């Protein structure tokens, strides 16, 4: 089997590498876009305006309470009805961003709420406006809680993108399907893809850990 794996990898290496590339960019881009969207959802959820915070809560509940695969199907089917020219990959990317945004919003909210309330009180007592307090006092401290958790979210996304192979969009699991259908060997390409996933996630979690330690070095 190991011999077969080496043979397959040397023959179809470029297919796997292309799959790796698609998996990485899909995960990173979707988490980055989700982070931007997530900030607004988190702020909405913490808002004192009831309507706004209920809408945000609802959004988070719906996204976290339904399967990712269902969401992928939903956007893949629904978006082309509104935008006929939209490509599969854009539909999938949007679905991934929407899915990640709900989780990222909770990460951001938790990060903001973990900042010592005394920090806000001090800033309030100095007569700073709500907006400045958020931008200059709370957020710079919250980001130290948020960034490592975002790293973890990228790791989760790397694994989640495998579901997108249902739509044959070229990430790692699609690479597996391609190689499997040409060679009629299943376990070997599957193991190769598994090793690539493992390499990705282990490397990333190490990096996340280092980032976390560096961010904390300055304080406390």
């Amino acid at each position, binding site marked *: 089997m190991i011999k077969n794996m080496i043979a397959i990898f040397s023959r179809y290496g470029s297919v796997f590498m292309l799959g790796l590339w698609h998996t990485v960019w899909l995960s990173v881009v979707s988490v980055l876009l989700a982070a931007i969207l997530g900030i607004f959802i988190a702020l909405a959820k913490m808002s004192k305006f009831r309507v706004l915070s209920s809408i945000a809560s609802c959004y988070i509940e719906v996204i976290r309470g339904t399967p990712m695969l269902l969401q992928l199907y939903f956007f893949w089917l629904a978006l082309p009805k509104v935008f006929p020219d939209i490509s599969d990959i854009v539909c999938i990317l949007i679905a991934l961003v929407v899915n990640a945004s709900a989780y990222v919003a909770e990460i951001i909210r938790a990060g903001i709420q973990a900042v010592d309330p005394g920090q806000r009180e001090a800033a309030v*007592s100095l007569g*700073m406006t709500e907006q400045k307090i958020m931008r200059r006092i709370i957020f710079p401290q919250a980001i130290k809680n948020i960034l490592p958790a975002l790293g973890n979210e990228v790791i989760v996304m790397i694994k989640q993108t495998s579901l997108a192979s249902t739509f044959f969009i070229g990430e790692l699991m699609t690479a597996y399907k391609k190689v499997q259908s040409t060679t009629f060997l299943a376990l070997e390409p599957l193991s190769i893809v598994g090793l690539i996933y493992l390499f990705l996630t282990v490397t990333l979690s190490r990096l996340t850990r280092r980032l976390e330690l560096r961010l904390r070095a300055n304080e406390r």
Partner: protein
Amino acid sequence: MSDKGNYVIKVQDLRKEYNGLQVLKGVDFEIDRGEVVTILGPSGCGKSTLLRCMNMLEKPDGGNVFFEGTDLTALKPAQIIQYRRKIGMVFQHFNVFPHLTALENITIAPVENGMLTKEIAEQKALALLERIGLADKKDEYPTRLSGGQKQRLAIVRSLIMEPDVMLFDEPTSALDPEMVMEVLDVMRELAASGMTIVVVTHEMGFAREVSDRVLFMYDGNILEEGTPEEVFDHTRTERARDFFRKVINA
């Protein structure tokens, strides 16, 4: 309602409750310009809440808080911001900003509030750091400062706003004993410079030596009020006598 007396802050029939528990039961008093007032009392008596109502960090449930003739309880949140800039506050746990250097801790509020340019704010901040003996620490982050240094930094962070009154909420309670003195010294100097000061504290020596007036609070009310001699040496209520005995013998 507006009356401009000699007072800086006047509190009228102030009431506050948390979850049905009455913490302030109608407190009345005023602080005159240049006066140093100490608020004493057992924990949970409402003294910190009273202080925090004075700059509307806590919203009172009843009564009024006048600041130089303006009823703060009648204002919208956006309007209160202007007045808070004139009311400095120092917290038990310092609440210095950990992501900013000592200098930036002092300059951030006046600069972000658009009250001073960055250059002038830095000049003033340097002079203030000089005054508390921390000029050489200007570029240090608060992690590198001791508790006493952090609290002194927190005091000048408020002073740069040139407040009309300074509120101190147990400023030495979280400090190691050997650092209490350096913070009290800064407060003493501040009092001598004519600043109007309200302090919630357990430092009886400081209260006796520096205050013009002492308030003893118990269970949401002011039980005793007078000069340090009146309150400490001619204590009228058994509750206050009991409290002083415990604190002084501790």
